[in-house]
C-alpha cells in the first residue's frame, strides 16, 4: 500500500486533476459506450418483438 491517508491518495502527489481526469475520461467513455449500446439493443429487440406478432 502506497498511501498514508485518504487525502494523500486523492491528491496524487499534486497531479490529482491529471490522474483523476484521465481515469474519469477512460471509464466515463466506457460507461457511455455501454449505455448507448444498451439503448440500441433495447430498441432493436423491441422492434423485433413487434415484428413477430
Amino acid at each position: 500500500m502506497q498511501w498514508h491517508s485518504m487525502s494523500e491518495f486523492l491528491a496524487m502527489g499534486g497531479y490529482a486533476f491529471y490522474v483523476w481526469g484521465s481515469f474519469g475520461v477512460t471509464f466515463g467513455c466506457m460507461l457511455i459506450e455501454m449505455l448507448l449500446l444498451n439503448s440500441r439493443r433495447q430498441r432493436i429487440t423491441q422492434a423485433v418483438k413487434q415484428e413477430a406478432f
Partner: protein
Amino acid sequence: MKNIDIKSNMQTSKFNWLQYASPKIFYPLAGKLIPWCLAGAAILIAYGLYLGLFVAPTDFQQGEGYRIIFVHVPAAWFSMFLYLLMALYAGLGIVLNARLSYMMATAIAPTGAMFTLVALVTGSLWGKPMWGAWWVWDARLTSELILLFLYIGYFSLQAAIDDKSRADKASAVLALVGAINVPIIYFSVKWWNTLHQGASVSLMNAPAMAAVMLKGMLVMAIGFWLYSIAVILIRVRCEILERDSKAAMFRQD
C-alpha cells in the same frame, strides 16, 4: 413468417467450422459469451485499478503522475489493435463475401474509435504536466489523431451509402488502406525524433518498467480486451437483428 428451426438445422449439418460464419448460428453463441466477458472485464479492471492505484510504487521521474499509464497505454494499444482487427474482418468480408465479417468490422469501429479518443485525451492530460504542453505535432501524436479520423471516416462512409452491401465494401476498402497507419503509429517513436518517448514494453526487449507497474498495466489491458470483446459482441448482435430482423430468423427470448 415463423422461426426457422435452428436446432434441427444444427443437428443435420455435421460439425463444420464454417457454420459459425452464419449469423443465425453465431447470434446465440455470442449471447452465451457476453456475460462471461463482461464479468471477466469487471474483475480484471478492478484488480488492475487496485494494482495501479494502491500497489504500484511512485515513479522516480514522474511521481504519482505516471499512474495515467494504467489507462493510457492499454487504451492506445486497443485503439491500434482494434483497427487491425477491423481491417482484418473487412478484408475477410471482401475475400469471402461473408456478411458476418462485414458486420464484425462495423461492430468493432465504435469501440476502436472510443479507445483512440481515450488515448488522445489521457495523453493530453499526461503531456501537460510532464512535457509542458497539452498537444504537440510530433509523429506519434499526429498519426494517432489520423487514426481517429480514419475511424470517423469509416462510420461516415458507411452511413453515407444507403445500399448496405455497397457501404460494406466501400468502407472495407477504406479500413484496409488506412491499416498502413497502424505500423506508422507504432514505430513513429523509433523512426523519427519525437517528443513522445519510446516503447516501455515491446516484444524484442525486456520491459523498461518495474515488475509491479508492468503487471498492473497488463492486467488492465486484458480487462480492456475482455470489455472490447463483450461490447463488440453485443453490437454485432444488434447489427444482425437490425439487418436481418425482417427475415424473422430469430426466436424471441
